[in-house]
């Protein structure tokens, strides 16, 4: 027992040291350095990947339409914190600059909560009818929902909620979006990226905390039970749809929060951001790191962010040209992610940092589906 306690203390100490280093990291770089930019993106993607991890890793629901929650979160920021609805004149707890321009301008923290609420609601609306289906059907239905949201985003400029209030701004994007402006702190700017980094870090820590707490809880047990043997789980009193919905809704909320943050950080809400390939980008982070493995997913998110935004476009972009091929590596980016998915699933399905249970399930074929008792009754 004391050994275990000691082990735990060591872990906490390592975590705190690591956290300290991560927290002071921006101070060693220029205020507007590209590295801090990449790190901030990586943190925002950690939030998404950990959100998706609750859905795919914990509850075992393959969601191929996670981009829908990114979109809804981002649009929430676009609707409630930009000059997009210039005919309205609503200002709620915002700084001097935002107060002086037309449009709906609501404080970042409030929008963050609204975004979480909207995406949770969307998660429930999507999940309620679909989560009774078998796993592969869930995957396709969520994909279809993701595509529907994408199409609505593209064509939403034709849809008027009210006169002068189109749903989206299509491919042109809603831009600019309000920068974060918190009480007692200087308004954020695009010249100093450090505060953005710290906000993203705070969000990531929050999601990390929720992931750990949920994993070791009554709900966490119920998710494992459902994904390993749904028949036994429901026979033991676990309500399947409700329990899955809790995972789906929670994961959705984090996707929405990260989306809202990114809208403000990237200063645009553009329909082209919400393509299917983004869902796969986030899924690849979870698979690379290890399904259900919290630290693995963090690693996966950081790795793929840097591969996508640094390694491929900057460092390795010329490699094909150097070996005599007529294309840039950046053209290959989603092929690379596809390749990564195949390679990981075939060679190391448990990911870089395997989660103990998931590894057992994969090695011993636990939860390989149930042909003996078919629950899909006519």
């Amino acid at each position, binding site marked *: 027992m004391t050994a275990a306690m000691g082990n735990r203390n060591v872990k906490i100490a390592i975590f705190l040291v690591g956290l300290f280093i991560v927290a002071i990291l921006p101070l060693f770089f220029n205020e507007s350095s590209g590295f801090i930019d990449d790190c901030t993106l990586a943190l925002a993607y950690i939030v998404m990947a950990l959100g998706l991890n609750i859905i795919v890793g914990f509850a075992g629901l393959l969601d191929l339409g996670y981009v829908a929650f990114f979109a809804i979160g981002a649009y929430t920021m676009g609707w409630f914190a930009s000059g997009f609805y210039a005919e309205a004149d609503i200002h709620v707890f915002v700084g001097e600059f935002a107060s002086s321009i037309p449009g709906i301008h609501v404080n970042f923290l409030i929008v963050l909560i609204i975004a979480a609420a909207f995406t949770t609601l969307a998660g429930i609306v999507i999940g309620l009818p679909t989560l009774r289906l078998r796993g592969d059907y869930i995957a396709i239905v969520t994909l279809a929902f993701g595509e529907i949201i994408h199409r609505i985003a593209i064509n939403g400029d034709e849809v008027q909620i009210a006169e002068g209030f189109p749903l989206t701004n299509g491919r042109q994007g809603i831009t600019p979006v309000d920068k974060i402006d918190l009480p007692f702190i200087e308004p954020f700017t695009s010249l100093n990226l450090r505060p953005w980094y710290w906000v993203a870090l705070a969000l990531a820590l929050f999601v990390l905390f929720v992931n750990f707490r*949920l994993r070791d809880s009554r709900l966490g*047990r119920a998710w494992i039970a459902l994904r390993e043997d749904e028949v036994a789980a429901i026979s033991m009193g676990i309500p399947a749809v409700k329990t899955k919905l809790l995972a789906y809704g929670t994961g959705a909320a984090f996707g929405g929060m990260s989306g809202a943050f990114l809208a403000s950080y990237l200063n645009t809400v553009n329909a082209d951001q919400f393509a299917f390939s983004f869902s796969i980008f986030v899924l690849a982070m979870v698979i690379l790191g290890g399904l259900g493995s919290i630290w693995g997913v963090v690693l996966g998110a950081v790795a793929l962010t840097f591969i996508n935004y640094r390694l491929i476009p900057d460092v390795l972009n010329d490699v094909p040209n150097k070996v005599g091929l007529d294309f840039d590596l950046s053209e290959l980016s989603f092929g690379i992610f596809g390749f990564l998915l195949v390679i990981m699933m075939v060679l190391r399905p448990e990911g870089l940092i395997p989660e103990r249970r998931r590894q057992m*399930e994969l090695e011993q074929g636990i939860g390989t589906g149930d042909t003996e008792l078919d629950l899909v009754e006519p």
Partner: protein
Amino acid sequence: MTDASPDLILDARDVSKVFGGLTAVGGVNFGIPRGGIVSLIGPNGAGKTTFFNMLTGLYKPTTGRIVFDEKAITGGRPDKIMALGIARTFQNIRLFGTMSARENVMVGEHARMRAGLFGSILRTPRVRREERHVSDKAAEELAYVGLPPNTFDQLAINLSYGDQRRVEIARALASDPKLLLLDEPTAGMNPQESDELTALMHRLRDERGLTILLIEHDMKVVMGVSEYITVLDHGEKIAEGLPEQVRNDDRVIEAYLGKGAVHE
């Protein structure tokens, strides 16, 4: 078990299940007296497990109605039926493979727990207390069914076959059921383990007032433990009564020796 019988904990009437034209269970009437130990027997493919699955909500009956403890449960959801007080084990053990014995039993207590999403995230004192309580109760149940204490925190799939059966029973008991359904609990057990299980069933009834329904192939166990026996063949009830009566029933002998002799 006639209609006049006043205290049935479970009363199934005219229950049938048809799969794409094939009748697995056809119009069975079946009652279990409160506090009884009742067996459902019959050759393989007689529809016993299908009947179990209808009682626990995994299948919706094609016709008929099922009343448990004065509440209609026909076609209800498995988790709700479980919460009302019917718990079960499975013919081919279905423990959660990556969980320890204790965690498996804790899943059985799911329906009795309160911790929700926010409680779990915040880990409030109430949630902590509940987790501790549930963990202790799981250990109690495991001890009650006779699992050696040093195996409580081992992975369930690493336990011996007999111990896995015990964990499954403990998991069912964890929900404080009124009616316990055991699907071939002694399958694969040696005679000594079977005897222990028989004793356990008596204890469950006597000490906890549980009603037990079991599907069983081992006639020694069936005759030793049952107060009442119902025999299914080809989805229909062909006999029922006291062990003595069933043992000497011509149709039962025919069902078993005629066609069923090949199956054990």
